């Protein structure tokens, strides 16, 4: 049986999906990147290989996320796609008539507007990461609450508390202030969820026509407090798909399937790459005053990829 591999290397998590030809998720892995994407990819692929049933053959591989080029050259990807397209494709697979995708990940938040299955508009947070997963993680750690319980606590809130949510630093000050005043923790957490949603809709979602069905995905979609806050703010139901955390990887796998259907072959190097030594190196180019910071990745002793140049000088590998 043929299957397709999708890898989404993000700031916070590295997700790996094996998708059947029919579009079912055979394996879905969610791992923490922990600042070491190469190791995350290798250990993820090892786990993916172990989960593989006999007779399943990888017929194509796609990568996405901020580490998509790195992952792409490591595995020999057939398609390397940006997160926006990958998330839109995955949302369309699960909810074919989806019109709005809200996606909040570790450090990115995006909104994707679709009509008739085609992306017609999108936006991504630009200057500020307030209201993304990393901030929620931080606050959960500060309050010593497991992030998984954050949402449930918010739902226990009985009294609204308004938290200033434009900037995470000020949001934290405001939360501390509200705590010192004696507000209950669930109320504060709920206030934070509402502040994040407000910030998201006023920044990323500004000027966008948000129509149902609305799909909410990304790591933060696991937080039922945020989902509830979105439903209150939008006045419409918000769907959180079962595989909300790994939607990017699902989209990448689906895009690989589409690509391979056209070319008929895959560049996938095989699971053997989990055993190969990889290392990266960076240096400052001295070719011109731009002093680009070039990063390169080695497989054994061979350079397989380079990034960061503003001119074609380092394109030849």
């Amino acid at each position: 049986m043929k299957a397709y591999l999708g890898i989404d290397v993000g700031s916070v998590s590295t997700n790996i999906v094996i998708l059947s030809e029919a579009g079912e998720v055979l394996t879905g892995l969610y791992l923490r990147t922990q600042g070491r994407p190469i190791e995350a990819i290798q250990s993820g692929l090892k786990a993916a290989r172990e989960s593989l049933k006999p007779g399943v053959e990888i017929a194509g591989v796609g990568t996405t996320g901020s580490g998509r080029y790195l992952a792409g050259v490591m595995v020999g990807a057939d398609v390397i796609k940006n997160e926006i397209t990958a998330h839109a494709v995955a949302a369309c697979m699960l909810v074919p008539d989806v019109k709005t995708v809200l996606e909040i990940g570790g450090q990115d938040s995006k909104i994707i507007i679709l009509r008739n299955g085609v992306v017609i508009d999108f936006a991504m947070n630009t200057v500020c990461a307030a209201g993304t997963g990393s901030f929620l993680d931080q606050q959960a750690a500060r309050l010593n609450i497991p992030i998984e319980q954050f949402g449930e606590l918010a739902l226990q809130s009985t009294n609204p508390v308004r938290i200033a949510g434009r900037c995470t630093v000020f949001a934290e000050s405001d939360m501390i202030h509200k705590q010192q005043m004696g507000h209950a923790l669930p109320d504060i957490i709920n206030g934070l969820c509402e502040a994040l949603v407000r910030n998201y809709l006023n920044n990323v979602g500004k000027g966008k026509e948000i129509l149902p069905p609305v799909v909410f995905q990304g790591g933060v979609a696991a937080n039922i407090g945020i989902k509830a806050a979105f439903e209150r703010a939008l006045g419409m139901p918000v769907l959180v798909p079962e595989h909300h955390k790994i939607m990017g990887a699902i989209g990448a796998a689906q895009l690989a399937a589409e690509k391979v259907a056209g070319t008929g072959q895959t560049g996938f190097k095989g699971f053997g790459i989990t055993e190969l030594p990889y290392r990266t190196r960076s240096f400052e180019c001295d070719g011109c005053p731009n002093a680009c910071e070039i990063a390169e990745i080695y497989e054994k002793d061979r350079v397989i990829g380079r990034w960061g140049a503003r001119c074609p000088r380092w394109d030849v590998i």
Partner: protein
Amino acid sequence: MPRVTFPHVAESYRSFKMLMEDLGNEVILPPRPSKHTLDLGVRYAPEFACFPVKILLGTYLETCPKGVELIVTSGGVGPCRAGHYAQLHKKILHSLGYPVDIVVFEPPRLYPLDFLHNIQRLNPRRMSYRAIYECIRRAWRKLQALDNVEKLTHKVRPRETIRGATTRTYRRVLEWIDRAYSLVEIEEAERSALEELQKVPQDPNRDVLRVGIVGEVYVLLEPASNLEIEEALGNLGVEVERSLFLTGWTRDNTWAETTEGLTVKEAAMPYLPELLGGHGRDSIGNTVLYAKRGFDGVIQLAPFTCIPEIVARTILPRVSEEHNIPVLTFFLDEQTGKAGMTTRLEAFVDLMRRKKAARRPA
């Protein structure tokens, strides 16, 4: 000989250098804006000044230590801060110990006497007006040649079969135009340059998207300030048409191509009847015209905190909806990261491709 310099605006320095030298000045060439330029500019410019101010100041701070006496720059029309920047630059440079003077060229049609006075300051050889006119004519022709060659790279790059071949050829043929001096030589160099670029191996059947680029003039013209967006788009298989060139030929072009013969100003009128300085109204008008000409999308480039473009940005979603054309905006400053821009550009290109495919009958 007075030592003069001027801002770096893409390849135009090749023409300005010739003109200044013809008039008897020693030219200190501005370097291509780099990280170092930005570091200098950001350190000494007000934080909320717009991006071009910082780049220009950085450029001056790179050339002034080489003994510049006179800076030649342009002014601004309408209520845009850029009109005051020359004076601001002068004050900052003086406070840093560079006793330079600045000659600001305003549109000659509005200030003819000013224009002649300024010309005289750059004319140490005391050439006749007739001789100066000939020099300007040659410089203008060289500028046109540079623009025409650049324009062709926008068409060739998305179709090239060898990645980077267009850019490499472009770098080479620019030198031919650089060396040309007389009108005949300039025209000859332009012709050979265009022919050479056409020889870059191309795939004529490639499905190429067409994108119009609108926005503020400096970030539009200087690739170093927009992270070489035109090259990046070319590599993604997108043919770009920029709404502005120094020689401004596009205006006539767009008139002829729209069926209604609309001007940029007329096209913008239903959305923005006021002149708001800079190129805010042009951004709107050009977006309308690109939509009417069947382009696949429009990209707006603006310096962070640029008021005219912020106003245009808030109007563009309506234009985008009513004319059914996707619009993507980039606000640029020293904080802009290439990775974020690449992700958005790739997504925008996917969006346009899928939209185009959906429109096409199966």
